C-alpha cells in the first residue's frame, strides 16, 4: 500500500505508533527491591488491622424441660453416668401391629413355640458411651393407651407411660464399628447374630396372642382394636448401675411369634408383628444431676416461660450443649459495642468465635458433637435463625478440630462477623441480651447424646471460649 498524501501518512504513522505503544507498555517487568521504601512512609497514614480477643463473653446454659423425641427412627435405650451431666437414662416407647393377613393355624397339629423381640443395630446408628460394656435391655408392655394428653401435639422426652411387668430381657454388648473386610465396618452384637438383638418374651403373652390368631380374633384382625388392647411396648435399660452406654436401635423392630406347623415334616413358622406408627415412637429421657456441677441448673418455674438461663459460674464454670436434655449454650457479649467506640475504629473486618471444650471433659468415649450449630438469640432465649458465615453464607457447624493427643487444640470455630457487625450498631435496650446460641443441629438434636461442655472465661486464655474481632483502624482520622 502506498500512501501519497503526507497528512494521511502522518496519521497512519501515529496510529501505528500508538498501537505499538499500548501493546509494548504491557510488557513492564517488576524488580524485587525488598521492602526498600518502608522507612520513608508516614506513620499512621493508612488503615491498619487491630485484633481484639479480650471481649467479655457471658456463658449461660438454657434449659427446656422436654424436647420432642418422636419419630427419630431410633429407640435410644441405655444409661450412663456422666461426670458432668450426671446419670442419664433413656428408654423408648413404641408400637407393633399384627400382620395384614393371618396364617391359618390348625390347633390339632400346629403348636406354639415362643415369642420374642428382634431389634436391629445398623451400622451408622447413634450410640454414646462405652461400647465395651454389656447393657441389659428390658421389654415391658405399656399399661395404658398410647395417646397424647389433651393440648399436646407431640411426644416429648418427659412423658412417662406406665408399664406392666417385665416381659423379657437380655444383656448384650453392641460393637457399633467392628471392622470387616474391604475396610468397611459393621455393627455386631455379642449374641453372635450380626447386628440383631433378640429378646425372648413371656410365653403367656405369646400363647395369648397365638390363640387370638388361631381364633381369628378381631383384636388381631383390626389394628385399631389391637392397639387398644395391646397398647405398645417399652424398651428400657435394666435396673442397677448404669452400663455407661446408650445405643440407638433402629425402629424397624419386630415382635415375632414362633410356632411349628406339623405335617409330614415339622416346619418352623412365625408370625411377625412389625413396628408401626412411627410418629408415636418416642424416647423418654431422665437425668439425675445430684452431686454434679450442673446440679445448680435453673429449672422452669412456670408452665409457659422462656427457657431459664443459668450462668456458667453457677454450674461449674461451663456451658452445656446437649439437645436431648434440652441444654443449649447462650453467649452474650455485654461490652461488644465498646469496640466501635474506640477512637481508631472505622470498620469491622471479621470476627471469629472459638469454642473450646473444658479440658478433660471429652474423650473417645464421651465424644463431642461432630457438629454444633450457631444461631442468633435474644432475650427470649429461643433459637433464632442460623448464623451464616461471611464467605459462604451457609449455616455453620463449628468445623470441629478434634485432637485427642493435644486436647487443648480441640476447637469449634465460627465466623460471627455478621452478628458482631449488627451488634456494634444495635441500639436496642435488649442488645445485651441478644447473643448467640450453640445447639446441636438436626437430625442429631433428638437422636444423639454427644455433648459439649464449653469452658467459660474463668479458664486460661488458651482454654476458654474466645471472641476474636479484627477491625480496621485508622488513627488519627485524617
Amino acid at each position: 500500500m502506498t500512501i501519497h498524501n503526507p497528512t494521511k501518512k502522518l496519521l497512519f504513522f501515529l496510529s501505528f505508533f500508538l498501537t505499538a505503544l499500548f501493546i509494548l507498555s504491557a510488557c513492564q517487568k517488576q524488580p524485587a527491591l525488598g521492602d526498600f521504601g518502608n522507612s520513608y512512609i508516614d506513620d499512621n497514614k493508612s488503615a491498619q488491622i487491630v485484633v481484639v480477643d479480650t471481649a467479655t463473653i457471658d456463658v449461660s446454659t438454657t434449659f427446656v424441660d422436654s424436647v420432642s423425641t418422636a419419630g427419630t427412627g431410633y429407640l435410644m435405650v441405655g444409661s450412663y453416668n456422666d461426670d458432668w451431666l450426671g446419670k442419664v437414662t433413656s428408654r423408648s416407647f413404641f408400637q407393633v401391629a399384627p400382620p395384614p393377613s393371618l396364617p391359618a393355624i390348625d390347633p390339632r397339629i400346629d403348636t406354639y413355640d415362643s415369642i420374642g423381640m428382634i431389634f436391629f443395630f445398623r451400622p451408622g446408628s447413634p450410640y454414646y458411651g462405652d461400647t465395651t460394656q454389656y447393657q441389659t435391655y428390658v421389654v415391658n408392655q405399656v399399661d395404658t393407651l398410647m395417646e397424647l394428653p389433651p393440648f399436646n401435639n407431640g411426644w416429648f422426652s418427659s412423658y412417662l407411660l406406665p408399664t406392666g411387668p417385665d416381659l423379657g430381657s437380655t444383656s448384650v454388648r453392641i460393637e457399633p464399628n467392628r471392622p470387616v473386610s474391604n475396610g468397611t465396618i459393621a455393627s455386631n452384637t455379642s449374641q453372635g447374630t450380626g447386628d440383631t438383638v433378640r429378646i425372648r418374651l413371656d410365653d403367656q403373652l405369646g400363647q395369648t396372642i397365638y390363640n387370638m390368631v388361631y381364633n381369628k380374633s378381631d383384636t388381631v384382625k383390626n389394628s385399631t382394636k389391637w392397639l387398644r388392647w395391646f397398647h405398645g411396648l417399652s424398651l428400657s435399660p435394666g435396673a442397677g448401675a448404669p452400663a455407661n452406654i446408650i445405643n440407638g436401635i433402629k425402629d424397624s423392630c419386630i415382635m415375632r411369634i414362633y410356632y411349628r406347623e406339623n405335617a409330614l415334616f415339622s416346619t418352623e413358622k412365625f408370625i411377625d408383628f412389625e413396628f408401626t406408627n412411627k410418629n408415636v415412637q418416642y424416647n423418654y429421657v431422665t437425668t439425675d444431676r445430684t452431686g454434679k456441677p450442673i446440679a445448680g441448673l435453673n429449672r422452669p418455674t412456670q408452665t409457659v416461660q422462656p427457657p431459664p438461663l443459668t450462668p456458667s459460674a453457677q454450674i461449674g464454670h461451663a456451658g452445656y450443649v446437649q439437645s436431648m436434655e434440652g441444654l443449649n449454650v447462650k453467649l452474650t457479649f455485654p461490652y461488644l459495642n465498646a469496640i466501635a467506640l474506640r477512637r481508631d475504629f472505622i470498620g469491622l473486618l471479621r470476627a471469629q468465635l472459638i469454642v473450646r471444650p473444658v479440658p478433660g471433659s471429652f474423650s473417645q468415649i464421651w465424644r463431642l458433637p461432630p457438629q454444633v450449630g450457631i444461631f442468633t438469640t435474644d432475650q427470649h432465649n429461643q433459637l433464632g435463625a442460623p448464623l451464616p458465615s461471611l464467605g459462604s453464607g451457609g449455616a455453620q457447624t463449628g468445623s470441629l478440630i478434634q485432637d485427642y493427643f493435644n486436647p487443648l487444640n480441640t476447637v469449634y470455630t465460627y465466623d460471627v462477623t455478621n452478628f458482631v457487625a449488627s451488634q456494634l450498631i444495635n441500639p436496642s435496650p435488649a442488645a445485651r441480651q441478644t447473643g448467640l446460641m450453640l445447639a446441636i443441629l438436626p437430625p442429631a438434636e433428638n437422636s444423639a447424646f454427644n455433648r459439649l461442655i464449653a469452658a467459660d472465661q474463668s479458664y486460661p486464655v488458651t482454654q476458654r471460649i474466645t471472641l476474636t474481632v479484627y477491625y480496621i483502624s485508622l488513627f488519627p482520622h485524617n
Partner: protein
Amino acid sequence: MNQSKIICFLTLLSVTSLGVMAQNNFQPYSQMGIGQLDEGYYNRTSGLGETGIGYRSNRFLITNNPASFSGLANQYFTMETAIRGTFISYSGTPVQPAGTQSADITFRKLVMGIKAAKHWGTSIGLVPVSTENYEFNVPYFIQGSNQAVSNHFYSYHGSVNKAFWANSYEFFHHLSLGVDAGYVFGDLNQKDILQSTANGASFTSTSNDIYLQNLYLTYGLQLYGRIGKHLEYVIGGVYSQKSALLASPNKQVLNPDSVTIQNFQNPDHYLYLPNSYGGGLSITYNQKYTWLADYRYSDWNGVQALNSYPGQDYAIVSSERASMGFEVSKKKNLYNSTVELSYFQSGVYYSNSYLAVNGRQLRDMGVSLGIGVNSLKSPLAYNIVFQYGIRGTTDNNLIRENYMNLSFILNFGAVWFTKGRKFD
C-alpha cells in the same frame, strides 16, 4: 483531510497520552517528594544530553527554552511526539536476586508549534513533570497479635504533567524573549493494601491522593548571531518562577468488598515548585558542527520550609544539572535552499537531584547518542536517542539504577496558511 480534522485527532492523541504517561519504570525514589522529576525534553536536544537552553531550530520544537520558538521557519507548523523504552538494572543491599531489572515502554510527550507571524513563534503541548511508580511489600504484624497474617502492599502510582502554551518573539534579529505558561496538574497516589499472606485477598486498603494544580511560568531569553563568517552562537537563559501548587489531599479507606468506609477530604495546602535558573551556550561552525553546554539550578532549599511532602526520613535539597553536547549536521543545497538531511549527536550530563536520602544527595549522570533523519519525501523527521546513565548509589543502603533509554522522537512539519503563495 482538512486541518480541523487533524486538530481533533491531535486532541484525542493528547488525551490518550495522559493515561499512558502515568506508566513508567519502577523507580524506588519516586515515592519521595513529588515523584521522580523528568529531566528529559524528548526533542532534538535529547541526543545532546538534553542540552539546549542556547539552541534554536527552524524545524524542531526546542522546549528547553521558550525563547526558541521564534526560530521556527515562517508559517511552519510542526508537531512532535515521543516514545521511550527503558531498561533499568538495580544494585544495592535492598535488591533481591529474584528481580534486579525492570523494563517498560512509555509515551512521553506531545507538542505542537507554529511560526504564527514573522517574529512570533508559539507552541502548545503536554509534557511530563514527574512520575511516581513504585511498589513493595512489607510483612505486617496485626496489632494485638504476634502473627504476621497480613502483608502491606504499598504502591505509588502517580504523575504530574504540564500543559503549556509558550510564546516567543524575536527582536532586532538577535534577541528572542519567550514565556512558557504552564498549567501543572496531576495526582500523587499512595495506596496501602493490607492483604492476606495466604491468598493475597485484600483486607483493607487506604488510598492517599494529593491532587496538584497551578500555573508554573518559565521565562526564556536567547541572544544569537554570527561571529565572523563561519561561527554562529546562541546564548540562552531560562528562569522558572516559584509556584505554589494547590495540593488537595484525599484519603479513602476501603473494606474487603471495596466499599468505601472512610473518605476524608483534608484541608488544602500548598506544595511549592522552586525558583529555577538556567544558562546555556551553543557555538555552530559552518552550520555543521555545534557545541553546546547548559547549567541549571533549582532552589529547592528556598521552598523547603514551605513544603510538606508525603513521607519521612528524606530531605529536599537544591538541585543542579550540567550538560554538554556535540552535534554534526549533514546538509544539502536543494533549489537554492539548504536542507538538513541528517544529524549525529552526543552528550554527557551530571546532576544532583532534589532528593537526599539516608544522608546522600542522589546523583544522576550519563551519556547520550542521537541520530536524526529528515525525510525529503515526506514531512516527517525521525530521531533516535540512546542514553545510558547511573542514578543513585549503593552506599548507605540505597539503590543504584543503571539505566538505558532508547527514545524515538517523531516530528511532523508542514507549511500552513500559505494562501497559495510559495514557501520562501
